[in-house]
């Protein structure tokens, strides 16, 4: 095996390896979309964020317009403080509502934005006033049981 052949094959191997990595990063992963876009940050407080994770998508009308960049706990109001990175291409009114929704039945959670009607737009560092927390299954069940019990009680009293 002479030197030139070995060098050629090693070159081919390394090139193929890098091509595979590039393929994975671009066609398989999400490198092509998003990471180089310019963003501005706004914050939102939620009573319960459920399973929302950092880097979860922020969607409006079903289109991804940003990513969650930070999740922390506000020790004064005892609420979750979520920092949203929004693409500068998309401007939202100041009274936009943020809801935590689930994609599909068992999917991961994301932040849904519903645009309001205010003339002024959100700027870097603004806070979203209207928020709706994630649906927590236990609360839902207890609500259901409570309302069922109340119904039965009403029905009994009416007799």
């Amino acid at each position, binding site marked *: 095996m002479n030197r030139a052949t070995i060098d050629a094959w090693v070159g*081919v*191997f*390394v090139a193929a*390896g890098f091509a595979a990595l590039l*393929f*994975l990063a671009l066609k398989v992963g999400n490198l092509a979309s998003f990471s180089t876009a310019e963003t501005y940050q706004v914050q939102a407080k939620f009573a319960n964020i459920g399973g929302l994770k950092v880097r979860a998508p922020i969607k409006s009308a079903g289109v991804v317009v940003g990513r969650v960049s930070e999740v922390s706990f506000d020790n004064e109001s005892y609420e979750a403080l979520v920092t949203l990175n929004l693409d500068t291409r998309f401007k939202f009114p100041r009274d936009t509502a943020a809801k935590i929704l689930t994609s599909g039945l068992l999917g991961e959670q994301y932040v849904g934005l519903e645009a309001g009607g205010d003339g002024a737009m959100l700027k870097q560092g603004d806070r979203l006033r209207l928020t709706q927390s994630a649906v927590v299954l236990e609360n839902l069940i207890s609500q259901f049981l409570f309302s069922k019990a109340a119904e039965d009680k009403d029905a009994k009293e009416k007799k």
Partner: protein
Amino acid sequence: MAEGGRLRLFERLGAAVTARIWRLGFASRFFGYMLLHSGTALRRFQLTIREIYFAGVLSLIIILVSGLFVGMVLGLQGYETLQRYGSSEALGVLVALSLVRELGPVVAGLLFASRAGSAITAEIGLMKATEQIAAMEMMAVDPIARVVAPRFWAGVVSMPLLAALFSAMGIFGGYLVGVKLIGVDEGAFWSQMQASVDVREDILNGVIKSVVFGIAVTWIAVFEGYDAQPTAEGVSSATTRTVVTSSLAILALDFVLTALMFTGGNAR
């Protein structure tokens, strides 16, 4: 009589454990020495290139073929299960994440250990058995710098490339089976995949895993070769030890790395 037997058992157990710990210490000093004396491997890069050929290029066939088959099986099995919940469009996500996060680095690592790792151990062991290592030392050439270090760095460089190639072939295999054979929607296959596979979280972590595996496997391979008994049985048992120890190391490290990297959690 029974007392003595039981005591002997503990004695032997203790001796086996101490022997292994001592050997681990020796292997660590060997590793440190090799890193310090890697200058030759880097300055005379031709040596390392030659070893990349023997470790990496010659492993290409088995890696590519295995990757293809693993991807195809993932496609089949994945579809079977997903279509029961009406989520067959998530096939791309299933195949890609399984490969990039776990199967790529781990299976490629295991294959590399069996093919290249054992070859390296056998080669170095035979050099030791035929006194080539001793001859090199007598000629005032440090065999660790000249023989061991280039092979180590070649392994570390080859492993991530092989893991990436394995994953890429696997995804292609999953695509062949899922889209072309079974008929999952091509657009959904790729778009869902792209939406779910994160470059930093999944791909980068997969690359980090494969680098760690590369270091572990190649370290074990060169050490076992260098420490082999200079006889036929010695070299053969060293080669076996390389494959077994590397495989266990890969699986154990995989657990540790997965736990560190992929624990879902909001506190970052």
